C-alpha cells in the first residue's frame, strides 16, 4: 500500500495533466480555469507528498517495476520542491498570461507532464527509465520554452535547447550503453554491486558514467556545458524560465545525487573530476553573470553559479550514509528565491516582457515598494545573506564541504559568492537608488503578486525552521 502512496503524487499530477489535455479540446474552458486546476492538482499532490512522508528507503513495487523506482527522504524532498515549483509557476502564469496572450490549456497540461517526468526522475534508480524521464521532462520543457510561436526569440530558444539537449541525450544513451556493457544491467543496484566487486571503476564503467555525468552536467548547466542556459532563459517566458530554473534543476540534481551516491566507489572515483568542475562552474558562471544587463540572463548565469555550489555539495556528499539533505535544502532555498523573482517578473515585466534589463527597473521601489522589497529578499537569498534561506543553504553546503575535508572547495565557494554580490546588488541598486522613470503599471491578476509574497514568507520560513535537515 505504501508503494502506491509513494506514487500517488505522481499519479495525481499525471491525472491532472491528462485531464487538462482532455479539457483543452473543449472550447468552454479558459486558461484561468486551467491554471486554477493545475494549482489545485499541484497543491493536492504537494500535500499528499508531505503527508506520506517516507521511511528511509522504499523500493516502489519491487516486483512489478523490478526495483527501478526507489523513494527515500531525498526524493521526497525533491518531489516537494518540484511540486511547489509547479504550483507557484501556475500562480505566476495566471497573471502572466493575462498580459501575454499566447497561452492555451495545453500549457498547464505540458507543465504537469514535465513535473511528472521530474518526479519520475527523482525516483528513478535505473538508467533507461531515468533517460525516458529526462526526455519527458525535457520535451515538455522544450515545448514550454517555445510556446509563444509568434515570438522569434522563443523559437530560437527552443532550437538551441532542443538541439543541445538532444545532443546531450545522445551522450546519455551512449553512457547507458557503456555501463550496460560493463555491468550487464542499468539498475543502480546492479551497477553498485559490480563496482563493489572490483572495488574500482573499470574503464568501461568510467567511460559510461562519464557520458552520463556529461549529460547531467548539461542539464544542470555546469561549465562548460552552460552556454545554452543563458539564451534559453532569455528566450522563454518568465514563468517558464522560473519553472525550468528551479524544478528542472531539482530533478536533474536528484538524479545526479542518486547516481553518484549509488556507492562509495562511484562517488570517490568522480570526486576530483567534480571538484574541478565545481570550481569552473562557479567562477565561469560568475564571470558570465557579471557582463549581463538583462535580468533573466543574469539569473540564468547565477543559476550556473548555484549549480556550482550544488556540485560542491555533490563532491562533499557522503555516499555511505547518503541523505541528500544538504542538496535538497539548497535546492529548496534556491527554488524559493528564483521562483520568487520570476513570479515578480511575470507581473512586473509588462506586455511582451518589455522590461527586461536592469535599467528598466530603475526606481521600482518608489512605485511598488512591496514588490521591490520582495525582489530584494529573493536576491539576498540567492546571494546568501542571512537570515534568508539562501544563507542557510550555503551554510550547509560549506559545512558539509569542510566536514568532508573539501577545504579548498569551501573557500572557493565563498570567494565565488563574493564575486556574485555585484550582480545581485546591481538590481537592488537599480530598484532603490534611482528615481522612477517608468510607471510600472501592473496588469493581469493579483495572483502572482500574492504568490510572490507567499514566497517571501517561504524564504524566511525555510531559513528559520530548517525542517529538512
Amino acid at each position, binding site marked *: 500500500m505504501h508503494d502506491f502512496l509513494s506514487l500517488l503524487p505522481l499519479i495525481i499530477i499525471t491525472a491532472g495533466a491528462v485531464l487538462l489535455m482532455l479539457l483543452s479540446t473543449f472550447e468552454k474552458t479558459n486558461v484561468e480555469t486551467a491554471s486554477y486546476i493545475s494549482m489545485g492538482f499541484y497543491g493536492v499532490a504537494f500535500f499528499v507528498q508531505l503527508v506520506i512522508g517516507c521511511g528511509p528507503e522504499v523500493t516502489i513495487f519491487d516486483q512489478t517495476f523490478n526495483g527501478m*523506482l526507489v523513494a527515500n527522504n531525498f526524493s521526497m524532498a525533491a518531489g516537494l520542491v518540484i511540486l511547489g515549483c509547479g504550483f507557484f509557476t501556475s500562480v505566476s502564469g495566471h497573471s502572466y498570461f493575462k498580459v501575454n496572450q499566447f497561452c492555451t490549456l495545453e500549457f498547464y497540461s*505540458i507543465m504537469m*507532464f514535465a513535473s511528472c517526468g521530474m518526479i519520475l526522475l527523482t525516483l528513478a534508480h535505473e538508467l533507461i527509465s531515468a533517460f*525516458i524521464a529526462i526526455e519527458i521532462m525535457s520535451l*515538455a520543457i522544450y515545448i514550454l520554452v517555445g510556446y509563444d510561436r509568434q515570438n522569434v526569440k522563443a523559437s530560437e530558444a527552443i532550437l538551441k535547447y532542443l538541439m543541445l539537449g538532444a545532443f546531450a541525450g545522445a551522450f546519455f544513451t551512449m553512457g547507458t550503453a*557503456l555501463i550496460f556493457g560493463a555491468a550487464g544491467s542499468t539498475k543502480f543496484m546492479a551497477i553498485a554491486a559490480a563496482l563493489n566487486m572490483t572495488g574500482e571503476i573499470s*574503464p568501461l564503467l568510467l*567511460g559510461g558514467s562519464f557520458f552520463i555525468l556529461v549529460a547531467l552536467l548539461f542539464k544542470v548547466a555546469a561549465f562548460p556545458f552552460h552556454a545554452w542556459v543563458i539564451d534559453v532563459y532569455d528566450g522563454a517566458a518568465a514563468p517558464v524560465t522560473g519553472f525550468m530554473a528551479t524544478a528542472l534543476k531539482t530533478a536533474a540534481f536528484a538524479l545526479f545525487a542518486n547516481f553518484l551516491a549509488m556507492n562509495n566507489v562511484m562517488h570517490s572515483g568522480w570526486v576530483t573530476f567534480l571538484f574541478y568542475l565545481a570550481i569552473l562552474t562557479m567562477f565561469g558562471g560568475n564571470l558570465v553573470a557579471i557582463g549581463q544587463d538583462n535580468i533573466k540572463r543574469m539569473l540564468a548565469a547565477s543559476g550556473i553559479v548555484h549549480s556550482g555550489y550544488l556540485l560542491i555539495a555533490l563532491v562533499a556528499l557522503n555516499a555511505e550514509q547518503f541523505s541528500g539533505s544538504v542538496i535538497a535544502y539548497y535546492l529548496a532555498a534556491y527554488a524559493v528565491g528564483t521562483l520568487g523573482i520570476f513570479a515578480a517578473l511575470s507581473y512586473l515585466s509588462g506586455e511582451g516582457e518589455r522590461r527586461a534589463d536592469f535599467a528598466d527597473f530603475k526606481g521600482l521601489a518608489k512605485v511598488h515598494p512591496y514588490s521591490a522589497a520582495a525582489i530584494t529578499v529573493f536576491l539576498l537569498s540567492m546571494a546568501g545573506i542571512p537570515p534568508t534561506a539562501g544563507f542557510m543553504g550555503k551554510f550547509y553546503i560549506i559545512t558539509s564541504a569542510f566536514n568532508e575535508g573539501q577545504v579548498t572547495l569551501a573557500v572557493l565557494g565563498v570567494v565565488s559568492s563574493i564575486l556574485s554580490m555585484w550582480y545581485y546588488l546591481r538590481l537592488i541598486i537599480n530598484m532603490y537608488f534611482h528615481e522612477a522613470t517608468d510607471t510600472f503599471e501592473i496588469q493581469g491578476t493579483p495572483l502572482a503578486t500574492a504568490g510572490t509574497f507567499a514566497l517571501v514568507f517561504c524564504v524566511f520560513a525555510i531559513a528559520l525552521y530548517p525542517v529538512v535537515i
Partner: protein
Amino acid sequence: MFAEVLFIAFAALSVLGAMGLILFRHPMKGAMSLIVTMISLAGLYALLSAKLIFVLQLIVYAGAIMSLILFIIMFLNIQDNDLPVEEGRFLYLAGGIAVIIPIASFLIKIVNGLPDSQVTIVGNGFGGVKEVGLILFQDWLLPFEIVSLLLLVALIGAVVLAGKRRLVK
C-alpha cells in the same frame, strides 16, 4: 568468415553513410546517406542475432522516422539558396576532427581494454519477438509505460508547436 565479410561490408557502408551525412550540403542527400547507414546497421543487428531489433530498425528507424524527416524536408521545399552558405566547412571539419580525437581515442582505449571474443549468430530464439517481448513486459514494464507518456508529450508538443493555433480566452 562469411559473417566477417558481411560485417566489413556493413561497417564500411555505415561509415560511408555517416560521412555522407556530414559532408553533403543538402539535407536530402544527407538523409539518404543516413538511411544507408541505418540499413547497414540493421544488417549488423542481424549479425548480432538481434532479430527483433533488426526488424524494428528497418521499419521504425529507416522506415518511419527517416521518411518523416524526408517528408518534412520535401514539405518545406528546401532549395539550394535556402541552405546556409557554409564557408570554411572543411576547416571546421578539420578543427572538429582535432577536437574529437581525444574523445575517440578515449573511447577506443576503453574498447581495447575489453576482452575480445568472436560473435556468432545464436539461434534458440535469442532476440526473437517472443523472448524480447517477455522481458519487456516482465522486467521493463516501467520504461515501457513511461515511454507512452513521452510519446504523448511529443504528440501534444508537435500539435502545439506546429499545429494550427486556437487561442483560448
